[in-house]
């Protein structure tokens, strides 16, 4: 019996010793105490975050968060779990900040706090080069349209997109009556299906302009971007809920980075243009 008692006390404490305990509302304290900013971002979203040839996570978003760590005077670490895990919230102290090209939505705002907008990304339609029917969003009516699951592009095709920005929702127009959304785990599969030809598996894809542009430039014989931007996607910095001091600190750092031209320089380095938002 005594042995059982010892075991029952020992087992959970071992488990706790092995892991780290999260404490809500103390992100800033944790960052300063551990002297480490832990960023969470997507594993493959070039040019914002991706693993380069030397095996390092790099990109627009990574440079910004590295700069934040530098200005806080702490070390920097990046982790790349799947997107669903990032947007599920409840980080429990695993990660401190997500400079990860996230668009605020109503559902996401329930589990994460959005701190500030740092750039704006247009969403566009991509079609196969052989397609001459789809010229704008109005032509999406009755078509099979692919998008990465869990993204705003998927919500847009379903006509359910609500862009929740603190201080009111941005208006989104839907010029088509109904389109069939085909959700994909990764955009690569969607683009591979679109490359098979119009109507084979997909008629079009809704995707971010910046990533779509890079893909079209790499394979101009397969894809083209058509029509105007469907909506401007505001991209915000996200943090776990419940630490206003941390959010104030991030806002302050972004103001500095905008004022001294750091944001602009990072944007031009990775995207070739200044797409950053006013701080």
């Amino acid at each position: 019996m005594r042995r059982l008692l010892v075991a029952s006390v020992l087992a959970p404490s071992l488990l706790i010793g092995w892991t780290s305990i999260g404490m809500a509302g103390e992100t800033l304290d944790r960052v300063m105490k551990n002297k480490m900013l832990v960023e969470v971002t997507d594993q493959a979203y070039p040019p914002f975050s991706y693993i380069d040839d030397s095996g390092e996570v790099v990109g627009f978003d990574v440079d910004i968060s590295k700069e934040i760590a530098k200005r806080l005077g702490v070390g920097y670490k990046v982790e790349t779990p799947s997107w669903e895990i990032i947007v599920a919230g409840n980080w429990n102290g695993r990660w401190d900040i997500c400079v990860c090209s996230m668009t605020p939505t109503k559902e996401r705002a329930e589990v994460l706090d959005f701190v500030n907008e740092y750039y704006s990304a247009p969403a566009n339609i991509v079609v196969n080069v052989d397609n001459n029917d789809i010229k704008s969003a109005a032509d999406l009516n009755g078509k099979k349209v692919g998008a990465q699951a869990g993204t705003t592009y998927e919500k847009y095709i379903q006509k359910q997109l609500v862009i929740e920005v603190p201080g009111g929702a941005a208006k989104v127009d839907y010029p088509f009556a109904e389109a069939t959304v085909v959700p994909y785990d990764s955009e690569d599969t969607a683009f591979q299906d679109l490359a098979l030809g119009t109507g084979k598996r997909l008629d079009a894809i809704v995707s971010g302009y910046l990533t779509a542009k890079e893909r079209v430039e790499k394979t101009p014989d397969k894809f083209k971007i058509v029509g105007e931007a469907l909506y401007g996607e505001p991209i915000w910095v996200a943090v776990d809920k419940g630490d206003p001091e941390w959010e104030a600190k991030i806002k302050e750092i972004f103001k500095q980075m905008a004022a001294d031209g750091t944001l602009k320089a990072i944007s031009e380095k990775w995207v070739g243009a200044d797409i950053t938002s006013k701080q």
Partner: protein
Amino acid sequence: MSDTSKEETTGVRVTTAPVFPRGATRAFELRVVAVWVTLLVLFVLFFMSFGLKFSFIVDRFPALAGLRLTKDGFIQGAALTLFVCFFSIIASSLLGLISALGRLSSSAVCYGISTFYTSFFRGTPLLVQIFLIYLGLPQLGPVPDAIPAGIIALSLNYGAYLSEIFRAGIMSVPIGQREAGASLGLPNWVVFWTITLPQATRIVIPPTGSQFIAMLKDSSLISVMGVWEIMFLAQSFGRSSYRYIEMLTTAATIYWILSICFEIIQSRLEVKFGKGYSKTR
């Protein structure tokens, strides 16, 4: 030929080296090798037809195969996959054994816990279990890191499958063996440890080996937590440079080679534990 193929399909060969059927002639062995080589060449030609960019594969192969450390100095790729599998194999074997004993026990509590455990972990997808442990456990207090969470999930899942295999193995040992031990006045645990278990081990090695090969590949599911194992790297490199097929074929090849190594280990163990049953000795 029909005899040998029959023996192939039954899948249980516990006495001799498992590469060729028992009593195979030299000519038969040569023909099998010829078939393998032909199929392999056809397979390679099939992949060549995709128009793969080999320089891309060569650049990233060291990372995928685990020959290079990450920037932070941690293992990655195949090395990390094997690291995770190593601990999961140990933990799942222990869990499987304990659970099998629980299932065979006369205590209602042990029986209940054991059957509940196997039912839940065999009855739900591994991916769901991974998410439950990684995202659900923090709600209770402890916040597991990605790699421990992956090892816990794989161990619990495979422990449940192994439990049934081990139970079958233990039950396959004739009751007379235990009775003989008891009649010598040996305590129960000595009978189990020195008489029942070694005989059961011989029976459970082939199905257990299959489970570990399956685990090797299922460990790719822990990539969702951002663990830099083979599949994670293949997807990251593939996605960000639009060279998905290159990376997937490379990952497939590495998994296949690792599986073959597991198969070889399994056949060695079969020979070792099958010694007493070999007709040739």
